[in-house]
């Protein structure tokens, strides 16, 4: 068998010129994120960094998770699993959609099949292709406010929701913003579930 190469996995396909029609998901549940500020702050880097960022700043981006504890995994597992002394001053934002958010659901096998994709769009490392897909959806689906995709660290059944912030911001309400230092029980539940270590001191809640 020497010299015989096994073909590697097929690369994640790039989006076609015209996207097939799929049934959208209408998201009405809570969303969560951990942030420096108590308000929503979308970002638009001139060069993309995160999975569904705009390739050339075409739209502002906002990343959220569907589960409060899952947000800690998505935020901190790849940051060394430690919440350093300053992390207690960040906020856990609880977001409520004021009206349904129209999403493309990469958790739905029918959507993946229609697009000829697989779960690497959610958990793979080819961010450039993921960004091309997000841009294609943004351009071809003006009613779509974002993408529902599988969480990588929080567990396979937990969804993250990426939002095109220019379309989603007006439909989201921050219903609660609590500093991590004031929500000891939530933080320590997340720490237990995802093997995180918390180095900041907790304080009595001000609310």
């Amino acid at each position: 068998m020497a010299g015989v190469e096994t073909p590697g996995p097929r690369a994640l396909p790039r989006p076609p010129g015209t996207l097939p029609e799929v049934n959208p998901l209408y998201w009405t549940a809570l969303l969560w994120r951990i942030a420096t500020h108590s308000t929503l702050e979308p970002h638009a880097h001139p060069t993309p960094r995160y999975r569904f960022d705009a390739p050339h700043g075409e739209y502002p981006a906002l990343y959220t998770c569907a589960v409060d504890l899952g947000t800690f995994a998505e935020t901190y597992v790849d940051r060394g699993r430690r919440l350093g002394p300053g992390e207690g001053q960040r906020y856990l934002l609880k977001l409520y959609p004021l009206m349904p958010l129209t999403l493309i659901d990469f958790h739905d096998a029918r959507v993946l099949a229609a697009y000829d994709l697989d779960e690497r769009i959610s958990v793979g490392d080819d961010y450039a292709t993921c960004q091309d897909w997000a841009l294609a959806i943004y351009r071809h689906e003006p009613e779509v406010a974002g993408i529902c995709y599988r969480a990588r660290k929080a567990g396979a059944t937990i969804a993250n929701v990426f939002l095109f912030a220019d379309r989603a911001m007006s439909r989201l309400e921050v219903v609660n913003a609590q500093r991590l230092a004031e929500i000891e029980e939530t933080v320590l539940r997340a720490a237990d579930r995802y093997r995180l270590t918390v180095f900041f001191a907790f304080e009595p809640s001000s609310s």
Partner: protein
Amino acid sequence: MTELAPLVDALVEPPADEEDRCWSLAEARTRNLERRFADQSHLARTALSASVVRGGLNVSRQRLHQLVTQGRLVAIQLQPGAPGLFPTWQFAPGIPVRPIAGLSHLLDAAREAELDALMLHFFMIEPNERMRGRTPAELVAAGELDRVIDVLTSTGLGPL
């Protein structure tokens, strides 16, 4: 922000599962403290003291402090006022002792990603799925600093 909160809580409060019912805050505090002690013990065993680094780099106490505050070396302070501990991955093998090539770029990236010294250290030594299970420290030692910076600046659920 406050008007909707009680209504939303009432509508979407999830049912308690078995894990929720058995969970105790007091026990969780103990488990977190155990993890912290384990980290502190690990650091004490594996990181270098300021005096060792001063000797190795042949610099004064003041110069070493400058190198840390200028973001050219990493020092972890486990308590305010405690002497810093210097992770070994930031030093190149061989003599004379010197920081790894590109360390200042790595530290700039850590600041951009909002990782403090402690979090950066554990980011560097924990196996990373996006590096096929290798640690960032291993990749840096293998000359793949750019790959580590790329992962570092795109880690987590978007920018904080």
